[in-house]
């Protein structure tokens, strides 16, 4: 298994965010982590990326504990912009290239070139959608084993969503796994192999997307709405 979460628990004060999460993901899949706002998606993602300490349980990436080694094989797109917007694109690329051994500079320039972004451009001059595309291009330019994308299309228009989805698909290597969280299910469900539903800090479903469609005769989006009707 590429990713294993065993009895993962996390609370902030008295509030339990992750309640005994058990999860295992193999290589070679595109997986959707689907949940409402506040369901624990981002907390789980941060835990997998070693950005917070667990109260209980353990997370293994490719058999290893979360740490320096696991960070080398995970390419992570956080929910928020974390790049210095006043830096030039080429400086950001150099920075990534210094930081990550598996960063493919040529690929990054190619992806950015497709977006008509020049090496001398600065993020500060770009629209929100464009910044999201730049960040995604950087994340997908690493040759990682696990890509974790937290809300890769939060707050962008439908045309940009299509672009982002195509970029994810075109850069999906056989050996790698992509896990992406979203609540925009209908936009992304066609590319998912597996879906994980998370609600109130618990995993409520973890199954093959097409199997779920076959069994229910419904889209993942509909199943989600029914499962979590307010």
């Amino acid at each position, binding site marked *: 298994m590429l990713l294993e979460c065993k009895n993962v628990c996390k609370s902030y004060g008295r509030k339990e965010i992750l309640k005994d999460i058990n999860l295992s993901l193999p290589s070679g*899949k595109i997986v959707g982590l689907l949940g409402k706002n506040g369901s624990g998606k981002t907390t789980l993602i941060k835990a997998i990326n070693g950005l917070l300490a667990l109260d209980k349980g353990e997370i293994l990436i490719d058999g290893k504990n979360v740490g320096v080694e696991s960070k080398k094989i995970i390419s992570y797109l956080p929910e928020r912009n974390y790049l210095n917007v006043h830096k030039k694109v080429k400086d950001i690329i150099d920075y990534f290239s210094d930081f990550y051994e598996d960063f493919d500079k040529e690929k990054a320039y190619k992806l950015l070139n497709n977006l008509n972004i020049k090496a001398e451009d600065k993020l500060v001059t770009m629209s929100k959608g464009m910044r999201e595309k730049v960040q995604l291009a950087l994340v997908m330019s690493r040759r990682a084993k696990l890509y974790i994308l937290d809300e890769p299309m939060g707050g962008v228009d439908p045309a940009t969503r299509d672009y982002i989805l*195509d970029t994810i698909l075109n850069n*999906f290597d056989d050996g790698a796994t992509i896990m992406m969280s979203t609540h925009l299910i209908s936009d992304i469900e066609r590319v998912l192999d597996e879906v994980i539903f998370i609600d109130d800090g618990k995993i409520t479903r973890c199954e093959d997307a097409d199997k779920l469609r076959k069994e229910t005769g419904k889209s993942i989006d509909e199943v989600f709405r029914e499962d979590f009707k307010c």
Partner: protein
Amino acid sequence: MFNNEAPIYLQLFQRLALDIVTGKYKAGEKIPSVRELSTMFRVNPNTVQKALSELEDVELIYTERTNGKFVTDNKKIIKDYLENLAKEKTIIYMNNMKQLGYSVKEVIDMIERNE
């Protein structure tokens, strides 16, 4: 291109089967690679893989070890598949017409007049 209510691999399978029986991909011709189909239809390569394995099960395509996948050389398989599809559509159409109260003869008249 596909709807989200039915398994995507099945929809892709049906689409490719249709492309084969209608001659878009001819008997013995090489079909595009998994990667190419994935880009073309904007679906996951694993979904393409699954659709191709279904096509292989019904013998519309075959794998040549390292060369890729090819449409069957057996034209009878292709013809039979096409006929089955036509039959299915006819049954659906006839059921719809019966529901509207048309007899077989009236249906035939209707078809001839609208051709």
